[in-house]
C-alpha cells in the first residue's frame, strides 16, 4: 500500500534497517512482507513463531528517532495482539485506535476488541468508523452501504472517544494500490477531512501523555 513492495531489508550495527517509503524519509516501514522471497508465498506459521517475529520487529529494528510508531494488526485478540502489547509495554504505548465498520455485525466483534484493550491495560485513544457511507460519483447520492452509526454508538456504550467516520472513497483505495499519497493527491476527497480530523485528534492527545 505504501509502494514499497520488493524492497529489501538491510542490517546495520543497530539491527534491521526499516524501509523508508518517502523521499523526505519521514515514514519508515517494517513488515514481514519484506522478508518473503515470493509475494504469493503463504506464511503458514503458528502462534509462537509469529510472536517471536513481532518481538524482533520491536526490539531488533533500528527505528532511530521516532515521533510515532504505528502498529497495524490483523483482526482478532490472539497471539499477534498479545505479543505486540507485551513487546511495547516497556515503552508505555499511547494506546489503541480501534477501527470498525458501521454495521452491527462488525461492532459485535469490535466490542470484544475493546475488552481486550481493557484487560491488557491498553488505553483506547478512540474508535474510528470506517467505510461509513458511499457518495455516488454519478449523482452524489450518499448510500450507507454498510449501514451507519454503529461506531459512534459503540464508542458511547464503551465510554471511549469517537474519533470520526471515514466515508468510502474509491480514490483512496485506488491510491493505495498505486502507492500514491492520497492526502496530497485528493485533498478534495470526501474521505480527506475525516482522515485529517482523526489525525489531528490523535496528535492532540499525544503531548498530554508524554509528560
Amino acid at each position, binding site marked *: 500500500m505504501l509502494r514499497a513492495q520488493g524492497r529489501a531489508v538491510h542490517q546495520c550495527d543497530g539491527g534491521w534497517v526499516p524501509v523508508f517509503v518517502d523521499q523526505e524519509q519521514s515514514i519508515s516501514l517494517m513488515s514481514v512482507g519484506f522478508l518473503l522471497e515470493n509475494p*504469493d508465498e503463504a506464511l*503458514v506459521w*503458528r502462534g509462537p513463531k509469529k510472536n517471536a517475529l513481532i518481538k524482533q520487529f520491536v526490539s531488533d529494528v533500528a527505528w532511530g528517532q521516532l515521533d510515532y510508531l504505528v502498529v497495524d494488526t490483523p483482526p482478532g*485478540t490472539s*497471539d499477534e495482539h498479545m505479543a505486540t502489547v507485551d513487546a511495547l509495554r516497556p515503552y508505555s504505548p499511547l494506546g489503541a485506535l480501534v477501527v470498525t465498520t458501521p454495521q452491527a455485525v462488525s461492532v459485535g*466483534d469490535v466490542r*470484544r476488541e475493546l475488552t481486550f484493550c481493557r484487560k491488557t491495560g491498553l488505553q483506547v485513544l478512540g474508535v474510528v468508523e470506517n467505510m461509513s457511507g458511499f457518495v*455516488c460519483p454519478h*449523482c452524489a447520492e450518499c448510500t450507507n452501504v454498510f449501514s451507519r452509526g454503529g461506531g459512534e454508538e459503540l464508542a458511547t456504550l464503551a465510554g471511549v472517544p469517537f474519533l470520526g467516520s471515514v466515508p468510502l472513497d474509491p480514490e483512496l483505495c485506488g491510491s493505495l494500490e498505486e502507492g500514491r499519497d492520497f492526502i496530497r493527491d485528493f485533498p478534495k476527497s470526501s474521505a480527506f477531512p475525516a482522515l485529517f480530523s482523526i489525525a489531528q485528534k490523535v496528535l492532540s492527545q499525544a503531548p498530554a501523555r508524554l509528560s
Partner: protein
Amino acid sequence: MEEVPQGCPGTGSAQAGRGASCQGCPNQRLCASGAGAAPDPAIEEIKEKMKTVKHKILVLSGKGGVGKSTFSAHLAHGLAEDENTQVALLDIDICGPSIPKIMGLEGEQVHQSGSGWSPVFVEDNLGVMSVGFLLSSPDDAVIWRGPKKNGMIKQFLRDVDWGEVDYLIVDTPPGTSDEHLSAVQYLSSTHIDGAVIITTPQEVSLQDVRKEINFCHKVKLPIIGVVENMSGFICPKCKKESQIFPPTTGGAEVMCQNLKIPLLGKVPLDPHIGKSCDKGQSFLIDAPDSPATLAYRSIIQRIQEFCGRHLPEEGHLISS
C-alpha cells in the same frame, strides 16, 4: 488463560521438551519422552464423527472484511432452503465469532446431551456451532493463544453431535495460521471437498488471496473456486454502477485466469446484505430479486455441482 509457555516450540517439534522455554512447563516430561510427536488420537475420533457428514467445505480468505462470514452464512441458508438437505455451519473464528449474530442466534447457549454438544438450530435442517454460544456476554473477549484455539477447534469437530449432515460449512478467520492448520489437520483423515476463497476486487485483497491459494496447495486442500465479493455497486437513486473497490489489476477474474482456478461468481455490493446480517435474517429471502441474491444462488449451485462430482470414498485420505 494460557497453559503453554510463550516460546513453546510445538509438541511435534524436535525441540519438544528440550527447548529453553520448556523449563517449568507442565508438559515438559511428556514432550521430552516423544509422546507429543505421536499422532493425536482425536484425528481418528474426528474421522469417526465425520462419517455421517457427506460434504465438507472450508470458507477461507486472505484478508479480513471481505465478507467471508456473510458468504458462509448465506451458503448455509441457500443449501438449507431444500428441507431435505441437512446443513451444518461451524464457526472457527474463535476471536471474532460473528456467525451467531448473522444467523439470528445471538444469546443462544449450547446444550450437552449423551452424544455430545448439540448444535444450535436455525431451522430443523440447519445447525450452527460457534464459540460465540459459549460466551456469556457480547463484550467477552477470547484472548487465547494458538494452542487453546486449536483445542477448541478439536472439540468442535470431535464433540459436537452433528448427526447426519449433507454439507458441513466451516467458516474461518482471515489468514493462514493456527485455525486453518488445525482445521485441515484434524480433518486430515476425512475427505474435505475443498475450499471456497472469498475476495474483494482490489489488488491489495487479491495479494492476500494468492497467499491463501498457496496455503491450499501447501496443505493439499482442493480449491472449489474464488468468489469476488463487493463487486460493483448500483446506486439506488440513479441506478448507475460504480466500483467502490476498483479492480486495478483486473479483479478476481484475471487472477483466476492466470492461476487457472474457477471464478465461482461475482457478488455486487447491496446495502441490504449488511442490513439482513445485522437482523440475523437470510438476505436471499429478504431480497429475492436483488442481483446479489441471483449471484449467490448461482455460486451456491456451482458449489453443489462441484461436491456432486467429487463424492467421498470410504477411507479417502487427504495428506497434510
